[in-house]
């Protein structure tokens, strides 16, 4: 049964649609304690005194810890090793002397009931000496502590002779653009439940994304052996980059389960989530192009400032590094220089969010391309066509490293996808709708943005496939699932090789005691890495099954094929055995008779040095309300080439869902802070997620023109491309609606900001008949 490429319904869904999911908050253990975190109400202050007496007297309260009680626990480390320059900026699990953002954990209350824990937290009184607050990442660096300042690091990426290119430039075009502070905001808040099980092991439920790494990090922080900590991933209510990173609360529940000798549970509330879980984006770019007389961009120079918030968390410099490395995108750009300032401020710390660094970098670069087009007085599509990397130049290497790998665009046909998108947009009626609405004097515009994504980060991933005596198939992986359909995709890959339906395949992920290594789910890597490992393991399993079946059928293994879950002699289907019979023949006694290794199982590891680079184009048709500054996205198109889609329905789901998040960042979502560092978006009343009424119909042009040569299936990751170019495309469309190139310089485009822009234009678009 060919399963690759088929849009089959998900194997994950039955428990989720019947209320039988097991999210971490759904797990209850006898004798469990509930943790509540006391968080800083001020942005920057010295803690002078913490009074926990009144709180301790409440019935049901078992313990209260402050930073002094956890002083021996090291701060939370970076996943990437060796970044010693950034060590001073790591976050402690509880602040001891100083708090640096509103929401920073400074005490932990443990009680027998969650309501009691919350009551007690309200009775913890803290005295502060307030300190100077930094909210502007572009302000001159201020002291962070005695030895370091608020410029945590400067990221430098460059190649080619930028100076010479700018000196020889026919024209120079500069724009200053920024992307606001927003983030993943999964519908399930974070949570963790730690319990000490037999043999003294600490088991933590509520893991996600990178369970194996976190197991090791928790063990190290608590002075335990790696095998003393087990992480378990249950159902996970969305990840998007933020969930599953190691946060103070994860470490605190494990420590508490050890010290208090009881199961300890922590479930974040939404208000906490918006100040405690990683923020993201928030970059200002000043970006400049050198353009020759033919309109070819000979160099790009970019300087950006990233508002990192109060600490450098587990991602370290991943976001700024990716921003710098991926910024040149699909264009040739023979010379490039990028300087990125990682600036500490007194805000919630930032990390990755779907398309990290690319959403921001794509916005900056595509705004620059639009500005170049305006400078040259030509259609922005023409400017792009001229500067795209040609198909014959693939694979295309840039002398840049991204996430520790040499950057080489593995495959692609950029000019072709641009033309296909233009035809598709026309075919879907966007151009006609634009003309019609313009004819009735609506302020409408059509905008495009190109993007290159990266996916399938190595260096390794594995899979082990076991077949039970009754023929049940179990694929054990080191992957993680945040709800994206991992179980279905992996089952499809396995079932495709073994010619069995996905219903008979159970996919295990996120269980650190089931497999020794696993790097988890981020960077659109699971289908590429775990999928490939699964295919390899399934093929190895098939070889073994054929050999064992050959003994049972007294035939040559080469003559045996797998058909609909049975092994049969090719050309003589009456001579066949089921997979279950083959598995039973490999029990230890049976295997001894045939001289084979017991159990019908196989394991494989896929390693790679390079990432794969999917790519695509976004197109937006928008209407601007002249009087309110409101923007309505009428239609949206995402064209995306991912090499090969394992399950096109799931891929489209990823793209449309990603687009909704791109829309949020483009129009609605922003963590606004007051000058004294108070967060002003701490509920869903003021942090606005898109609802169904803001979402336009999204048409997806899913292409498989450029399979990657880096894995046998040719797959590239599909998780992020729906988000990447959204802000850039919407900005271009708004410019077009206003007939004012360069009007949008900042995301989100709030009605307030856009109304100001409209007032400055002081005329209706096209009123003088320019177009």
């Amino acid at each position, binding site marked *: 049964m060919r399963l690759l490429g088929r849009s089959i*319904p*998900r194997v*994950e*869904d*039955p*428990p*989720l*649609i*019947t*209320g*039988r*999911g*097991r*999210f971490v*908050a*759904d797990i*209850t253990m006898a004798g469990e304690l509930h943790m509540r975190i006391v968080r800083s109400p001020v942005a920057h202050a010295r803690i002078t005194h913490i009074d926990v007496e009144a709180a301790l007297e409440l019935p049901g309260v078992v313990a209260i810890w402050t930073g002094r009680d956890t002083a021996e626990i090291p701060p939370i480390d970076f996943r990437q090793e060796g970044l010693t320059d950034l060590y001073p900026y790591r976050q402690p699990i509880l602040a001891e002397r100083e708090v640096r953002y509103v929401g920073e954990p400074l005490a932990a209350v443990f009680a027998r009931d969650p*309501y009691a824990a919350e009551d007690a937290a309200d009775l913890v009184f803290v005295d502060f000496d307030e300190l100077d607050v930094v909210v502007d990442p572009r302000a001159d660096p201020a002291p962070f502590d005695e030895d370091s300042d608020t410029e945590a690091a400067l990221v430098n990426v460059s190649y080619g002779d930028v100076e010479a290119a700018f000196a020889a430039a026919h024209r120079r075009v500069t724009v200053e653009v920024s992307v606001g502070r927003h983030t*993943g*905001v*999964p*519908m*399930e*808040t974070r949570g963790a439940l730690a319990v000490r099980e037999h043999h003294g092991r600490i088991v933590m439920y509520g893991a996600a994304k990178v369970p194996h790494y976190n197991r090791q990090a928790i063990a190290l922080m608590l002075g335990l052996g790696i095998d003393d900590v087990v992480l378990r991933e249950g*159902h*996970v*209510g*969305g990840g*998007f980059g933020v969930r599953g990173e190691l946060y103070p609360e994860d470490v605190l529940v494990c420590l508490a389960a050890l010290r208090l000798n009881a199961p300890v549970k922590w479930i974040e*509330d*939404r*208000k906490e989530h918006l100040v405690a879980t990683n923020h993201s984006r928030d970059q200002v770019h000043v970006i400049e192009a050198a353009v020759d007389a033919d309109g070819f961009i000979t160099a790009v120079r970019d300087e950006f400032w990233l508002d990192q918030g109060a600490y450098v968390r587990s991602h370290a410099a991943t976001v700024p590094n990716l921003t710098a490395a991926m910024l040149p995108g699909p264009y040739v750009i023979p010379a490039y220089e990028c300087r990125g300032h990682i600036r500490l401020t007194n805000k919630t710390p930032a990390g990755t969010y779907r398309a990290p660094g690319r959403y921001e970098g794509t916005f900056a670069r595509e705004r620059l391309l639009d500005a170049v087009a305006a400078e040259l007085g030509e259609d922005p599509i023409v400017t792009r066509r001229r500067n795209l990397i040609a198909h014959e130049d693939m694979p295309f290497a840039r002398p840049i490293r991204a996430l520790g790998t040499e950057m080489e665009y593995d495959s692609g046909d950029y000019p072709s996808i641009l033309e296909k998108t233009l035809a598709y947009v026309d075919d879907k009626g966007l151009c006609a709708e634009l003309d019609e609405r313009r004819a009735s004097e609506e302020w409408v515009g059509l905008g495009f943005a190109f993007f290159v994504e990266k996916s399938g980060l190595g260096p390794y991933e594995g899979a082990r496939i076991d077949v039970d005596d009754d023929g049940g198939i179990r694929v054990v992986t080191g992957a993680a699932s*945040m*709800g*994206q*359909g991992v179980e279905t995709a992996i089952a499809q890959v396995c079932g495709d090789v073994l010619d069995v339906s996905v219903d008979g395949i159970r996919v295990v992920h996120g269980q650190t005691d089931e497999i020794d290594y696993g790097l988890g789910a981020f960077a659109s890597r699971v289908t590429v890495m775990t999928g490939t490992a699964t295919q390899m393991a399934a093929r190895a399993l098939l070889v073994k099954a054929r050999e064992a079946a050959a003994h049972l059928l007294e035939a040559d293994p080469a003559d045996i094929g797998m058909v609909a879950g049975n092994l049969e002699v090719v050309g003589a289907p009456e001579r066949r055995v089921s997979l279950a019979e083959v598995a039973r023949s490999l029990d230890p006694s049976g295997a001894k008779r045939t001289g084979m290794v017991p159990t019908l199982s196989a394991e494989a590891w896929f390693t790679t040095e390079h990432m794969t680079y999917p790519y695509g184009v976004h197109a937006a048709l928008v209407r601007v309300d002249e009087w309110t500054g409101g923007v309505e996205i009428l239609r949206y198109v995402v064209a995306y080439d991912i090499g090969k889609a394992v399950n096109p*329905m*799931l891929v489209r*789901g990823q793209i*449309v*869902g*990603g*687009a*909704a*998040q791109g829309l949020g960042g483009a129009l609605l979502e922003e963590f606004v802070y007051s000058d004294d560092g108070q967060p002003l978006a701490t*509920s*869903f*009343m003021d942090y606005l*997620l898109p*609802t*169904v*009424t803001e*979402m336009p*119909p*999204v048409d997806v042009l899913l292409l498989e023109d450029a399979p990657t040569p880096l894995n046998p299936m040719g797959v590239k990751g599909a998780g992020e491309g*729906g988000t990447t170019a959204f802000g850039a495309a919407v900005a271009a469309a708004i410019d077009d609606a206003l007939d004012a190139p360069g009007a949008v310089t900042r995301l989100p485009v709030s009605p307030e900001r856009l109304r100001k822009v409209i007032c400055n234009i002081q005329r209706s678009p096209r009123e003088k008949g320019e177009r």
Partner: protein
Amino acid sequence: MKHQVTLNINGSEHEIFVEARKTLADAIREECGLTGTHLGCEHGVCGACTVLMDGQPVRSCLMFAVQCNGVPLRTVEGLADGDDLHPVQKAFWEHHGLQCGFCTPGFLMLATSVLEQEPDIDDEALREVLSSNLCRCTGYQNILIAVKAAAEEMRG
């Protein structure tokens, strides 16, 4: 001080003893063990905790258990009839109307309620109703498709 309350959920009675401040959502989850009803924001915006009270969708995070004494409540656990899925559940599965599944119980209850009351609801009104709840994974497109498909099936 705790109060004796009888919650009638999906036709079963649960005698519980709770403080007046115990939310309906917490009571359903913690006292009655029905964890299919999820809490996404606890301030009445996201709708993950939507349950039906006398057939009307309510945010169970904004209700107290003591307000619901004896009132018929329906949660996601009561949608299917044994192994037979409700048309709305079937449609969400078939049309990929969920990814992480956390918001799904709320959407299923909201959709069930609206389709029971307005089987012929038009697209625009349906969008308006579904905008009551938040989903962060799907971009809503397949949720809309699923609810429309369920509407068709329920109309027969």
